[in-house]
């Protein structure tokens, strides 16, 4: 029987003793009669990285999209800092959701805008009025905050570079800086490294883990690489056919658990 060697743990400091910030309970969702989420429960805590693992179609991305409001769950509750988001409407909901930032697989920067302008755009949720419609009117304070965010992700020297000229890894770092400029306390990353080469993927995951621990952020990342989860995450949620198969410490993500998460066509098996 072949065994998988666990990759070495990245040298992250121990996560701070952070409190729970988001509770997701009994999330269900179906598309065209096919259940894609079936009673998903999990909790995100400050200063901690949760990796969502599972085969394609297991419900990882849909979970994050439901939390972000990009998909509407059929049932379940999402509580952010003690507030049930389903009880909020309009601007209250937008304001509450601005505490949750998202990093996308396709990065979604505006290529014609500079890295600095893209990062400033993360603050749009708290800017209002005519001065917020163009980067020309961004305040010096906002630009300085954005520069600090860029420096935090190691991209300060590329501040005035057009986003379209950055490499995939650099652009994803800028997207993380945009999330920091949003001042969010929860960072959801939907396959943040799927489009990156192994080295850039390692760097971006290390950055997310470092930010979670140092800035006390709650980070949830959908990953397709168990070794990255083992190196950088604190806990793992493994999904199979929309149900949680495993939830716990990374030490439980051994070879047999990985095999269970990635068994093809489990429903038919």
């Amino acid at each position: 029987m072949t065994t998988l060697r666990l990759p070495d743990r990245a040298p992250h400091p121990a996560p701070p003793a952070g409190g729970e910030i988001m509770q997701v309970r009994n999330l269900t969702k179906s598309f065209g009669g096919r259940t894609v989420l079936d009673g998903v429960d999990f909790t995100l805590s400050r200063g901690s990285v949760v990796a969502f693992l599972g085969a394609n179609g297991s419900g990882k991305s849909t979970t994050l999209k439901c939390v972000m409001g990009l998909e509407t769950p059929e049932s379940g509750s999402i509580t952010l800092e003690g507030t049930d988001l389903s009880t909020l409407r309009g601007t209250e909901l937008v304001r509450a959701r601005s505490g949750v930032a998202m990093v996308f697989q396709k990065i979604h920067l505006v290529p014609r805008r500079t890295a600095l302008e893209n990062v400033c755009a993360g603050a749009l949720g708290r800017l209002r009025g005519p001065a917020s419609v163009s980067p020309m009117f961004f305040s010096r304070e906002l630009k300085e905050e954005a520069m600090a965010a860029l420096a935090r992700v190691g991209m300060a020297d590329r501040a005035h570079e057009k986003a379209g000229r950055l490499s995939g890894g650099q652009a994803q770092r800028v997207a993380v800086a945009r999330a920091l400029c949003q001042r969010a306390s929860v960072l959801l990353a939907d396959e943040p490294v799927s489009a990156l080469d192994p080295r850039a993927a390692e760097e971006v995951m290390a950055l997310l883990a470092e930010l979670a621990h140092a800035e006390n952020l709650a980070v949830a990342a959908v990953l397709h690489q168990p070794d990255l989860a083992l190196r950088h995450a604190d806990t793992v949620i493994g999904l199979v056919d929309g149900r949680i198969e495993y939830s716990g410490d990374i030490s439980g993500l051994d070879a047999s658990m990985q095999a269970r998460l990635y068994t093809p066509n489990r429903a038919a098996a």
Partner: protein
Amino acid sequence: MSTPVPTLSVPPVPRAGWRIASILAAIAVFIVLHVFALRGTDFEVSALVTGAEGMASFLADAFPPDLDWESVLAPALKATTVTLWIGLLGTTLSIPTALLLAVFASRTTTPHRVVYQLSRAILSFFRAVPDIVFALIFVTAVGLGPFAGVLALICHNTGVMGKLWAESMEETDAGPQQALATAGASRLQQVTHAALPMALGQFVGLLLYRFDVNVRSSLVLGLVGAGGIGLLINQSIKSFRFDAMATQIVVVLVLIILVDQLSSFIRRRLEV
């Protein structure tokens, strides 16, 4: 002896007969439509042959072109400049209206379904009415001259450019807009910080194309009294001064080439 190359019988194409019948039917419809079109437009090659004499007489009158500076060339250059200004103003002054209607008429940026339908209807109206009809209306309203031509182009160009811009916004990647929406950006902020910058390259390209078209359109508008070189060409034809008309057409040709080259140069510089 070489190893035989493996082969596999090709499965029959599903519904192949139906596909061939569809293609033949489409060709038949195409031919029938053209027969009706040829009859409806009195299209006769023989008329070209019989009219060759008239054409030769016209060319004999037109060449050599009259290059008299005082009476032909200077007025032609002056009127061509007016034509250029009509095309320029007709394009640039339609930007605000075209942009507003494009944002409202694009599925990715419209604030409401009703606004979307209404904006589409307005754009369709401005696009459906030809610029020459607008010119006739404005000549009646504000009198003969280039101002009527500018107004006519503003109206028609709003319709065309608004639709082209709306479609280009719908075709661009909506991801950045979605990313800003998740960050709490308002609808207006999503438009100004994502949708518009994402489509900016195409916007500039289409704007330059429309400028090119509008300069040529403003020539025709002159024929109905909306000023510019078109008006002079019309006067030359009516007074049988075909040699003067030939000079005016050469001046127009130079203008069109210059505008085309300028447009290409700007597009290359902006990488659009």
